[in-house]
């Protein structure tokens, strides 16, 4: 399946892009992260401390063990600092 992957804040800066389309057979968000980390050092570095990363599936906050299902968009970002 093809999924849109978004990166924000320092994840965007470390990976060097804000969005990309990814072809993946990953079952869960965590599986997708593992695939990304295996690609290149900049991904591996960005995801090296998952405790500092949050993710959203189709714009809803989810845990890393959530199945991708039919999702069209997954986003990775640091803990939010609004307000």
């Amino acid at each position, binding site marked *: 399946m093809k999924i849109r992957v978004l990166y924000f804040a320092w994840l965007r800066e470390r990976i060097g892009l804000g969005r990309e389309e990814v072809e993946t057979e990953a079952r869960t968000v965590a599986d997708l992260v593992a695939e990304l980390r295996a690609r290149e050092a900049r991904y591996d570095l960005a995801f090296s401390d998952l405790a500092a990363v949050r993710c959203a599936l189709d*714009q809803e906050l989810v845990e890393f063990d959530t199945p991708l299902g039919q999702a069209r968009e997954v986003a990775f970002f640091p803990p939010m*600092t609004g307000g």
Partner: protein
Amino acid sequence: MTPRIVVTEDDFDLGSEADMLEQGPDTGAVVTFTGRVRDVAGGLRHMVIEHYPGMTERALTDMATQAATRWPLSGVTIIHRHGTLAPGQRIMMVGTASRHREAAFEAASFLMDYLKSRAPFWKKEVTGDGADWVAARDSDEDALDRWRS
């Protein structure tokens, strides 16, 4: 009650926002919170706020809807800016209107606690020494505990 949710690069006018919330015969109490760029040690040049277009509006609307479920509110406004902001500029506001003061205060405080750690905004501080993403505070995450029941 349809919440007023605005995500924008532009400044807002607190007086006219509060006026809008005050409308309606049964509104006795309006609470507003305004957040503003503070200066930081080392001298802040400016702050850059990034957000997740689409998810931001959904998350803010969802928070406002949750607040209206918990408290009898006649109005909710959430405005959050993004882009580059100088020290002293307003970042965001929440406003709540209700019949009684307790509901307006609690709902505004609830919205702020959720907004701090559940709305997809990220702040970067640019000083003379460079640029740093603001780290989330554990106390902001802890603040959510009091709203779980």
